[in-house]
Structures are given as structure tokens and as C-alpha cells.
């Protein structure tokens, strides 16, 4: 039951990853790419959570936490670069 | 090993580390204080190096197990005759370079002393470590410190040369990791002595991989040693760097040479089965080519700094040629040559700055400039150093070159070595004579006035000139040391035994124990899902 759900879950999230990647590649604008990258980050958090459950080990939790944190910081930095150029000023 | 006296092995690393750290902490302190600390650090280092040298001179191998972890599991430092001598030369060079720098060139940029100390740490660490990955770490330390020192003083030429130097070395570091990784991936260890054992017992199907890794490692070391065609970074970098920095750089190519010597005598030495004496043929050919190419550079140089930089290339080629011959006499000759050439080229760099400074706008360009009021002094020092570096008697380079040729006498390479070494000596001599007579004799009446050099600035240069002479006078004891060092290199079994059969320590394990314990583990400890 759980394994089936996990398998489906992995499949769905993997497709999501690929879709985000597709948006990242085709763009067309710079903000689109930031958005796609941000989504990709969140998707990977999903992947990690699934992996955690699958391996029944919470060792990857910090990685998920950090991806969430850094995904945000990255988005902020990239977006600020577009509006201000100088991201630390 | 619990004897505190044995800490002398790590002292050459720790002293500059602590001095450098202290200088970092004293950010913004007055220059005299920084100079004093830096100088004290170097003097302490010199004392430690001397102590270390004396301890290993009778053939003892000192093994220092960091964290009390026995090899091959922990990192060990190993001091043998060769590494102690390299540390010693580095310390002496550091003293001279610092004496030079504190005359004012250290103030052209900040952080000079910090970088200087860390560079020393990196150099000494590279000479002392017995672990391949740790060698990588020390390479990086010395490289990043050298990047900083290269850029010390700033300016467009330095930025450009620095960019080339840094990027090339970054790629070199990547190659290093590829090589170390492969070795670990096949042999499962990082300690050089342990690697040697495992290479000696290598199953035939793994030979290709290990050979590939070993040759890749050779590329890395050859890059550091400036072996043709991987020397391209050197002339630009060394000629652009301020002499205060580059004086210490003179030893950096020696690190490459040292690493080649260490790795290919210990791991891929005579007992390495199908991988025995892996790089010697390459070394011989490329070493000779390096001499030729360096000579071309020397002839073509339009300024003194560039000329001296090419001299560094030549000396590197000479050393590696000797190493390529592989015999004890040849290694000994190469070492003998190497120690003095580091000092002499460093002194030439320092002299270059003095000349450039007195000549004002003409700097070190090889064209007629103002009449030098101290032409006799500067020219005299130049003459002595030029003779030393070109291999003309009675100075140190001569003996070095003679030893190298002599070591090649009963090898098939003799004709090549003799022809190339002798003819390039002549060409170098001609180029130096031209440079010297242009700089010190030829005057351009419209060139304005030159200033007097700072006499204190010339002290280290003069000291090296004297050392160069003493190096000949005491050639015999020095050579017997290098000969013993070469003998030690050629019998890696002693090294391996010293490293791997060290005493049992608190917290550490002897090799025997560990093998029984690791037997409990499946060989492929990484599980499969």
C-alpha cells in the first residue's frame, strides 16, 4: 500500500521535476526562469521527503530544510539582481 | 612518540600557521610590529628546520602521527633527509625574502606578511606530509597564498598574469583530485607508503587504471614544476609578481620536483612491478626540452624579471632531467642543483627589483638607461649570481651541472644531456652577459639620473652570493647529504616500514590490529540497496 503510494508519488513528483525543468529551459523571460528554478527547488524538497519515507530514515530531513531555505535565498537573490543589479547594497 | 621533542616534525608547519594567524588577528597593526612578528616567526622556523635537519641527518625517518592515528588511517608527517632539506632551504629562502621585503616592498600591498607565512606553511606541509590527499591540501594552501602574493602590489600586469596563473592551477587541482580519486578508487588508501605496498601487489587488470592515475598525477606535478609544455604559466606569473613575493616563489617549482621525486620513487619506484619507474623516460625528454625552451625564453626576454623567470624554467628542467636519470648519483646531483638554484634565482629576483628601482622609469628593461652610481656593486652581484645560475665556475651552479652530466656519463642519454646542458649554459651566459652589460655598462645620456640602491636591500642578495660560493667550498658534505637523501629515496622499503610499523599509540592502532578488525568488515563495505 505504502510502497505503491510511494512509487506513484515518486512518479508524479519526477514528472513535476521534468515539467519545471522544461519551463526553466524554454523560459522565455528571466522571471520565468527564476520561478521555474524555485519550483524545482520545492520539487526536490518533495523528492527528499518521499525518499525519507521510503528509506524510513530521517537523515535527509536537514537536506530538505536547507533546500527550502536556500531555494528561497536563491530566488530572492536572482530576483533582486533583475530589479536592482546590486544584490547586496 | 610521546616525547615532546618529536613535535619538531610538525613545527615547520605550525610555526608559520601560528605566526600567520597572529598576523591575521593583528589586522591593522603597525607595519614595524608586523615585520617583527613575521621575522621572529621565520627565525623560529629556521631554528626548527635546523633541528629537524639535524635529527634526520643520520638517516632516521621521523614519523609524526597526527591525532595519534597510525598510518594508513590517519595522516602522518614524515621527515626524511630530503624533506628536511627542502624545509631547510625554504626557511633560508624565507629569511632572505623577508629581509628583502621588510626594506619596503612589503608595504606595496597589505597582508603581505600573512600570505608569506601561509605560503611557508603550505610549502613545508607539502614537503613533510606522507599522505597523498593531504599533499593536495597543502598544495592548495601554498597555491592560494601564492595567488595572493602574486597579486601583492596590484596593477594590470599582475592581474592578468594572476588570472592565468590561478585558472591554470585550478585546472591542475582538478586533475590532482581526479588522480587521487582514481588511486583511492582502485587501491583504497591514501597514505603514500600504503599506496606503495598496494601498487606493488597490484593485480594485472588494474594496472591500466593506476597507470592512468599516476600519469595524470605526473601532469599535475609537472605543471607545478613548470616542465615543458606545462611551464607556460610561469614566465608571465613570475615576471609580473613583485620580487618581494617571487623570491619565495623560487622554491615553488621545487615543490613540483619534490613531489615527482617523492611519489615516483616511493609509490611507483623500482618495486612497483609493471609500473616501476613510470615517469623517468618522460622526465628525461621533457626535462631536456624544458632546458631548451627556457633558454629560448632567456634569449628572447626584454626585461630582467622575465629573463630570470625563464632561468627558473631552465633550472627546473635541469633538476627534472637529473631526476629522470633515476640513479642515485643523478638524484643526488639533481638535489644538489635544486637547493642552490632556488636560492640563486631568488636572489636574482631580489636583485632585479633593486636594479629596477635605481633605474627609475627604465625599470628592468634591457635597454640602455641612466648611469648607475652603484654599477660596481649591483653589477658585481649580478655577475656572481649570473655565473652561479649559468653554471660557470667557481659558483654553485657549475658543480651542480657537472654533477648532472657526470651522473649521465654511463647512460645512453649522455650525448643529449651533455650537448643540451652545455650549449644552453653558453647561450644563457651570452644572454646574461648581454643583459648585464646593457644594464650596468651601457648608459643613455638622455636617461636622467639613477638613484642609489638601498644597501640593506642588497644584504640578502650578497648573502646568497656568498652562500653560492660556500656551497662550492662545502660541496662535499652537502653532496654526501644529498647522496644519502637519494639513497633513502631509492630504498622506499625503509620509508614504508617506518610509516606503517610505527609504535602503537594511545588511541591509535597498529597495522596488524587493524587488519584483523577490518577483516570483520566486508571488503566492499558500501552496501547495495
Amino acid at each position, binding site marked *: 500500500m505504502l510502497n505503491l503510494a510511494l512509487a506513484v508519488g515518486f512518479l508524479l513528483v519526477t514528472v513535476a521535476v521534468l515539467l519545471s525543468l522544461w519551463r526553466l*529551459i524554454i*523560459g522565455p523571460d528571466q522571471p520565468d526562469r*527564476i520561478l521555474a528554478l524555485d519550483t524545482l527547488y520545492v520539487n526536490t524538497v518533495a*523528492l*527528499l521527503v518521499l525518499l525519507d519515507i521510503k528509506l524510513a530514515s530521517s*537523515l535527509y530531513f*536537514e537536506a530538505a530544510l*536547507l533546500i527550502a531555505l*536556500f531555494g528561497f535565498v536563491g530566488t530572492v537573490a*536572482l530576483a*533582486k*539582481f533583475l*530589479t*536592482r*543589479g546590486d*544584490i547586496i*547594497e | 612518540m610521546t616525547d615532546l621533542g618529536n613535535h619538531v616534525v610538525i613545527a615547520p608547519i605550525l610555526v608559520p600557521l*601560528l605566526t600567520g594567524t597572529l598576523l591575521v588577528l593583528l*589586522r591593522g597593526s603597525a607595519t614595524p610590529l608586523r615585520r617583527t612578528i613575521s621575522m621572529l616567526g621565520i627565525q623560529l622556523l629556521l631554528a626548527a628546520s635546523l633541528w629537524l635537519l639535524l635529527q634526520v641527518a643520520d638517516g632516521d625517518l621521523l614519523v609524526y602521527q*597526527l*591525532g*595519534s592515528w597510525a598510518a594508513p588511517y*590517519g*595522516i602522518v608527517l614524515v621527515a626524511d633527509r630530503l624533506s628536511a632539506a627542502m624545509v631547510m632551504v625554504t626557511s633560508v629562502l624565507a629569511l632572505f625574502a623577508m629581509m628583502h621585503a621588510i626594506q619596503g616592498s612589503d608595504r606595496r600591498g*597589505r597582508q603581505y606578511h*600573512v600570505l608569506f607565512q601561509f605560503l611557508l606553511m603550505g610549502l613545508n*606541509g607539502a614537503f613533510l606530509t606522507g599522505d597523498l590527499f593531504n599533499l593536495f591540501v597543502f598544495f592548495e*594552501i601554498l597555491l*592560494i*597564498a601564492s*595567488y595572493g602574493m602574486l*597579486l*601583492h602590489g*596590484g596593477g594590470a600586469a599582475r592581474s*592578468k598574469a594572476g588570472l592565468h596563473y590561478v585558472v591554470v592551477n585550478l*585546472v591542475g587541482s582538478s586533475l590532482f583530485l581526479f588522480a587521487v580519486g582514481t588511486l583511492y578508487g582502485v587501491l*583504497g588508501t*591514501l597514505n603514500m607508503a600504503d599506496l606503495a605496498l598496494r601498487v606493488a601487489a597490484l593485480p594485472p587488470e588494474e594496472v*591500466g*587504471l593506476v597507470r*592512468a592515475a*599516476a*600519469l595524470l598525477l*605526473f*601532469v599535475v606535478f609537472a605543471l607545478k614544476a613548470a616542465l615543458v609544455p*606545462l611551464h*607556460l604559466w610561469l614566465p608571465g606569473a613570475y615576471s609580473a609578481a613583485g620580487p618581494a613575493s617571487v623570491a619565495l616563489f623560487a622554491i615553488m617549482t621545487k615543490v613540483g620536483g619534490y613531489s615527482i621525486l617523492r611519489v615516483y620513487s616511493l609509490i611507483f619506484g623500482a618495486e612497483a612491478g609493471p609500473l616501476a619507474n613510470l615517469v623517468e623516460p618522460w622526465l628525461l625528454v621533457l626535462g631536456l626540452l624544458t632546458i631548451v625552451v627556457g633558454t629560448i625564453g632567456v634569449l*628572447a626576454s626584454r626585461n630582467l624579471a622575465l629573463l630570470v623567470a625563464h632561468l627558473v624554467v631552465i633550472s627546473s628542467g635541469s633538476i627534472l632531467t637529473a631526476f629522470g636519470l633515476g640513479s642515485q648519483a643523478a638524484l643526488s646531483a639533481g638535489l644538489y642543483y635544486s637547493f642552490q638554484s632556488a636560492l640563486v634565482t631568488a636572489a636574482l629576483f631580489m636583485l632585479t627589483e633593486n636594479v629596477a628601482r635605481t633605474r627609475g622609469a627604465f625599470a628592468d628593461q634591457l635597454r640602455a638607461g641612466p648611469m648607475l652610481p652603484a654599477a660596481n656593486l649591483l653589477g658585481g652581484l649580478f655577475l656572481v649570481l649570473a655565473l652561479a645560475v649559468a653554471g*660557470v665556475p667557481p659558483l654553485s651552479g657549475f*658543480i651542480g651541472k*657537472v654533477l648532472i652530466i657526470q651522473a649521465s656519463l654511463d647512460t645512453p642519454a649522455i650525448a643529449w644531456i651533455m650537448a643540451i646542458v*652545455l650549449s644552453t649554459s653558453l647561450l644563457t651566459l*651570452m644572454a646574461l*652577459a*648581454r643583459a648585464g*652589460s646593457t644594464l650596468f655598462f651601457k648608459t643613455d645620456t638622455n636617461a636622467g639620473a639613477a638613484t642609489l640602491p638601498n644597501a640593506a636591500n642588497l644584504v640578502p642578495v650578497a648573502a646568497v652570493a656568498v652562500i653560492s660560493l660556500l656551497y662550492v667550498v662545502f660541496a*662535499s658534505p652537502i*653532496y654526501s647529504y644529498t647522496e644519502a637523501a637519494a639513497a633513502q629515496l631509492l630504498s622506499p622499503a625503509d620509508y614504508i616500514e617506518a610509516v606503517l610499523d610505527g609504535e602503537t599509540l594511545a588511541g591509535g592502532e597498529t597495522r596488524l590490529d587493524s587488519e584483523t578488525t*577490518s577483516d570483520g568488515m566486508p571488503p566492499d*563495505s558500501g552496501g547495495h540497496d
Partner: protein
Amino acid sequence: MTNLPLIVLIPFIGAMLPPWAVMTGRPWSAWVTGGVALAALALTIVPGLSVMQGETLIWQQDWFPALGLSLAFRLDGLALLFVLMILIIGLLVILYARWYLAEQDPMGRFYAYLLLFMGSMLGLVMSENLIQLLMFWELTSISSFLLISYWRQRADARQGARIALAITGGGGLALLGGILLLGEIVGSYDLSAVLAAGKSIHADPLYVPALVLILLGVFTKSAQFPFHFWLPHAMAAPTPVSAYLHSATMVKAGVFLLARLFPALSGSEAWTWIVAPVGMLTLLIGAYNAFFKHDLKGLLAYSTISHLGLITLLFGIGTPLAAVAGVFHIMNHATFKASLFMAAGIIDHEAGTRDMRRLAGLWKFMPQTGLLAMIAAAAMAGVPLLNGFLSKEMFFEKTVYMASFAESFWLLPVLATIAGALAVAYSLRFIHDVFFNGTPTDLPRTPHDPSRWMLVPVEVLVVICIAVGILPSLTFGPLLGVAVGAVLQGPAPDYSLKVWHGFTPALGMSMLALAGGALIYAIRQPLFRWHETLFGRIDARALFEGFERALLWSSRALDQLIHRRSLQFMLVVLISAALVMLARGFWGMPITGSATLLPIDPVSTSAAICLAAGAIGTVVWHRQRWTALVMLSVVGLIIALAFVKLSAPDLALTQLSVEMVTIVLLLLALHFLPKQTPRESSLPRKLRDLLLALLGGGATGLLTWAVLTRPYDSISGWMLENSVPGGGGTNVVNVILVDFRGFDTLGEITVLAIAAIGIYMMLRDLRLDVPLTDDQGRPWSSDVNPLILATFSRLLLPLALMVAVFIFLRGHNLPGGGFIAGLIISVALVMQYLANGIAWTKLRLSGELHPLIGLGLLLATATGLGSWYFGYPFLTSTHGHLHLPVIGDLELASVMLFDLGVMMVVIGITLVILIRLGRIGLVQRRVAIDDSDLNR
């Protein structure tokens, strides 16, 4: 006996005196120098006397046995002959130079150089060890370089000196090669051993190469054809120098060596066929050229070449009697040539020119000089009753003797006679053109005889010429005897030193030469014109200069080709080298191993697709730099995922944090760089790069595959075993980092610290244009710190700090550790800067960040040093459990402190780098506007 090294040492030590003495008064330097030479001469007397008894004195001291180099001096007949020549003529030259040098010439330096040279010559001739001989040999080249370039402001002096150095120095190097080969053959560099090994040397296959190399040394030093051209240019030296170098010393060193090694090397076909023809050619060419030189010193220079050719020819003939003649001529040539040079110097000094076309009729003005010169020139010409006649007579005799061996040798006496005639002709010219031949026309000065003392040296030498010419066996006879004995290393052959041998063919040749010489001189004007049209433009110096230019040009061309200052070129070379080496290593070996492999799952595949897309995207969009950066961050993310998947949580955390900081860093940098990369690579260039990239990628891919498909065994089993008992932590990676391989980590943070310092250094006073619009030309948004971001970022800070502490504390047992914690704190703080600006954040951040670097480094090192106190090596760790009431079990390990140090360094570095970088723009904008808005 022990005097021998002293004789050599005295001039070297003495060389320091003249520059001091000259401060007392110019003449003093001369007297001091003379005193030094006299002292050396005095020291020679006692050993000299025993040598005259036929003894060979050897003084030996081990120096460098491994090289075969010992400090060894030898005084035998040959050496004594040369020592006396060097010292006596040296003394005369010193005396002469005292009056010769002008007021403005620095006399101290002159005498210092002269003594250096004298010492080098003495060492050379007295060396018992061949390597030591070579050292002195090269020293003579160097000290002569200094002497020749004495008038350093003159271009011809510098040039002449450099030519001399290049030729003789180069010859010295060849000689070195030869000596090393000789030593290899004999097994020793001791002259005694070498001289005794004559037969075995000849039999050795290395004999010919050794001979050729040694002869190269000899010929260059003795100015033999085709290396003769340095000598005339060395005439740019002050005349005393010429008198010294080209009569008794420098050039004689070559023939000395010929004589010295005569027993060891001569007697073979190779010897005869090399040495004799070279000598003959030199003899003729020198004599010919001497006649046509208009410069007095030029004439003497070529005559010197010619006479050296003669001596060489004599040794080349190789018979003992020829050797006797050679040695005898060495002595004779030294005396008359030295006096002639001095005379020429006097003429130059007094008349102001050396050009024979301007000089004439000086006899009226300086009869004393004229007389002396005339006698000396007659000796040079080989006029009977003078010493030159005797040795030339012996020479003619030998040529006739040789001719009796084979039909084809008839040429020998003929050529000898021609050379003799030419010698007569130029001697005649020297005298007649200068002292007679009408009256002087446009001399710069009115000449007169020089001061008394300047003539004394010439007089002494001329007296010797006459004395020897008349009474050879009473004067040079004994010395010649022992010298010949030394040369031949055996009893001297039967020879007689008599003025009159009866009517021999040699006498006939002498007469013929005298007559022929007179004839040649008589028809000199048409000959000059003929020579001018034929060889007038051939100038050795121009040739050498041309050679030097060609060398320079070709080396510069090659240099440009090799040492391109192009990073791309360097990298192509480096990468190609690595590829070649990898290919060489792999060659012929199986790639795939036998290990069992893991299956591929869809998630990994799609991750790999993302990775590929990111990597390729970075390349494809590398012109749109911002986009490339976004693509790059995908790669970093996927790598982190791969680490997670492949059981490396610590790595994943580190990778993510570093990735983040790197992206921020690159964004910061990109602000100051062009946002687009221009298209500038040509298609072939791109294809080359692509090829290299594919090869590189293929190589590393194959390498990875090859390793991964092989089973292995590693030392890490031990680490897993010992992590808890030894390191006190269950996170083995962390235990390795802070304990087993803590030294690596110490090095790693050192690297970071140095990087930060270097960056700090580079960023000081860095001025960069701040772009005023974005890459599409739009002005920047006015919203510097978006409110919503600012609000939430402040909320994040405590959370992140908490997480960091958490990560730090658990690092030893679970994924985490100081490094990652440090980066989290850094990123949290960077976030504050991002959201609130530098000024705002800096105001609220307590304390400086910079000291963290030093303190962290210090803490880490001090933790390591702490173990010294307990008598353990650096970085030895300890750990234990602390039981506290209520709180429970608290685990403490010394490595925590180490890790704390790591954390501090990381925070300090990251922030120093990023904030410094961020401030560039701030500083710039402050330059542009002084707006308090920034501090909002």
C-alpha cells in the same frame, strides 16, 4: 710544498687590496699590486728550484671526492715556465699600466681585475686536478671579460668583451664536456693519472669525442681558426691588458693545455689531422690578416693569432722535437709580443692614434721607443740573433722533417715559408710605417718618448729577446729543458739550442722568408687594394653580430610561438597533456571491470536529465550570463540530490550551502561584468574546443566507469570500526573530518582564510563602473529593499540561527557539523544584507566579522596544540560523557572546539567576502551621489 696553493691564493686575496689602496693615492694601487705579484714570485723561488732539478711537486687536498674534484696543485717544468711568464710579464705590465692609465680611469678596479686574472691564470697552469683546472680556465674567461670591458662606456669594449666571453666561455664548456669524458675514461681527474694513461685513452671509444671537445676548448681560447675573431676585438681593452692577455697568458692557456695533455692525447691520427691543419690555417690566416691591418694593435692581434697557430701546428705535428719547438716558441712569443704591445701602447699614448696610415716618421720624436720596437719586431720576424729566429728555425726544421715522410707533405714547408714571409712583411710594416715612411701629418698630439719608467718594462723584455737570441742555452735553456720534460712526461729528446746549425734547409727557408717578406712589403700598396676589393667587407665582428642577431631573432620568434600569453592556449596544452597521459595509462587495458552494478531507477534518470540540461544549458546560454548562472544552480542542486541519494547527507548539506553562497557571489560579481558575452570564437576554434571538451568528458567518464565497475577494498572499514571507540561520534564522515583527518580540515580552513585575505586585499580600492541600467537598458527599480522581503527576512534570522546551532551540535553523530552550521549562519546573515542593505544590517550586527577568521583559525590550531600538553601528537582528540543531574548524559569531545573554530572561520570568511564585494557598488554610488537614502 705547501707554498703551491699560496702562490695561487695570493693574487686572489690581493685583488681586494687595490680598491682600498687607491684611496691612499693612485700610485699606491700599482705598488700594492706589484707587491702582490712579487710575493707570489718570491714564493715560487724555493719550489721552482726543486723543479729545476727535475722534480714534480704536487700538493693535494681532498675537496669533493664524489665529483673527483680535489684541491690539487702541481708545479713541474711546464707549470713553472708558465708561472714565471705570468708573474714576470705580469709585473712588467703592472709597472707599465701605472703610467699608461689616464687620470679618469679607475685604477683600483683595473688592478683588482688584473690580479683576479693573474690568480686565475696561475691556478690554471698549476692545476693538478682537471676539474679544478677547468674552474680556473673559466675564471680566466670571466676576469678577462672584466678586463676587456674595462672601459665600459665604450661600445666596442663591451662588445669585444662579450664576444670574448661567448667564445672562450663556450669553449670552456666544451672543454668541461671533454674533461668529464676524459675522467670517465681514465677514472680520475688527477693529471698524474691522466698523463699516465695515454695508451688506454686512445683505445677508448670515447677518445674521439673527448678529444674534439677538449680541442674546442683549446682552439677557442687560443684563438684558432675559426674561433680566432674574438681576439682582435679584445683589443678594445687597455693596452696593458692586451699586452698581458695576448702575449703570455690568456691565449697561451689554450696551447698550455695542448702541451699539458700532450702525452695523454697526442699521437693519434685524429690528433694530427685536427690539430695540425687548424694550426696551419690559423698561422696563414693570422699572418695574412696581420699584414693588412692598419691598426697597430690589430696587426699585433693577428700576428698573435698567427703565432698561436704556429705553436698549435707544432704540437699538432706531434713529435717530441716539435713539442720542444712549441714550448720554446711559447716563451719567445711571450717576450717579444709583450714588448711590442707595450710599444704600441706607448705610440698610441703619445701620438694619440694607432692607425698606421696616419703614423709615420716617429723615429725623430721617440727614438728610444723606436729602437726597442724595432728589435722586438725583428724578433717577431725571425731575424737571426734574436729569440724569434731560433724557434722559427726549429719550426721550419720540423716542417721539412714532416715533408720527408710523405709525398703529399711537401706543402708543409712551402706554407711555412709563406707564413714566415708574411711575418717578416708585417713586422717590417710595423717598423717602417710607424717610425719611418716620411713625416707625420695630422697626429692628434706631438709625440715624444714616454717617461722613463714606462719604457723599463719594454727594455727588460727586449733585453731578454736579445739575450735568448744570442745565448739560448744559457738563458731559456734550463727552463726549456724541464718544461719539455714535463710536456713529454719523459726524457727530453735530443735537441740543440744553437744560433748556428750550419746550412740547413731551415736556414734557407728563413732567408727565403726574409727576402719574401721584404718583397711583399715593397709591393704593399697594390696588395692593399687587392685585399680591399677581395676581403674588405668581411668583418668577423659583423659576422658575430649577425649570428647574435639571428639567434636573438629566432629565439624571439620561437618565444612568441611558445610563450603565448594566452590563457586559452595554456589550458589547451594542459588539458591535452592530461588527455595524452590518460590515454597512455589506459592503453591496451580492459576498461570494464567485474563488479556488480546498481540498477537504474526513473528518479535517478530524470535527475540525470536535469543535470544534463543544467550543464548543457550553462554552455548553451553562456553568452546570457544570468541565464547560465540559473542553469548552473540546477546542476548544483542535482549534485546535492545525488549526494543524498547515494548516502552522503553531509555532503549534500555542504554542497547546498556552498552552492548558495557561490550563486550569491557570482551574482554579486556579475553586476560589475558585462551581462552578455560577445561572439568572438571562430568556428574552427569552437570545434577544437568542442573536440577537446568531448575527449575530456569521454576520458573522465570512462575513468569513472572503469573504477566503478571494479571491486575494491579500502581503509575505511577501520574508520567505521573506530569511529565510536576512537573518535566518539557516530557520524563517521564528521569523525574523519575533525579527528582522523582533522589535519586536512585545518588545512582546508586555512585555505579559506587565505582566500578571504587575498580577496580582501584585491577588493581594497577596487573601482568598477556600476551599471546604471540593467542589461536591457531599463533603469533600476527604486525599491531598494522590498518591504515584504525585509519583514520576513528578519523573522528568518533567529530561525536560521537556531537551525545552525542544531546542525552544529549534532554534527559529530548525525549529518551536520561546524562547516555547514557556519554556512547556514552566513546565509542567514547574507539574507539580511540582501533584504535590508549593508548599512542597515551592519548597524545591527554586533561586532566585527573579520576577527572571526583569525580567532577561528587560532581556536582550531590551539585545540590541536592542546594535545601536546598531554604528551600526544598534534590534534589528538579526547571525548567523554558528562553525567549531569536532570539534564542527563552530555557528550563532550575536544573536536567540538575544533569544529567551532571551523565554524567561526567559515562565517568570517563568507561574510567578509560577500559583504566586501557588495560594498563595491556602495562605495561607487557614494562617489556618484551623497544620498542618505542608502541608509534607510
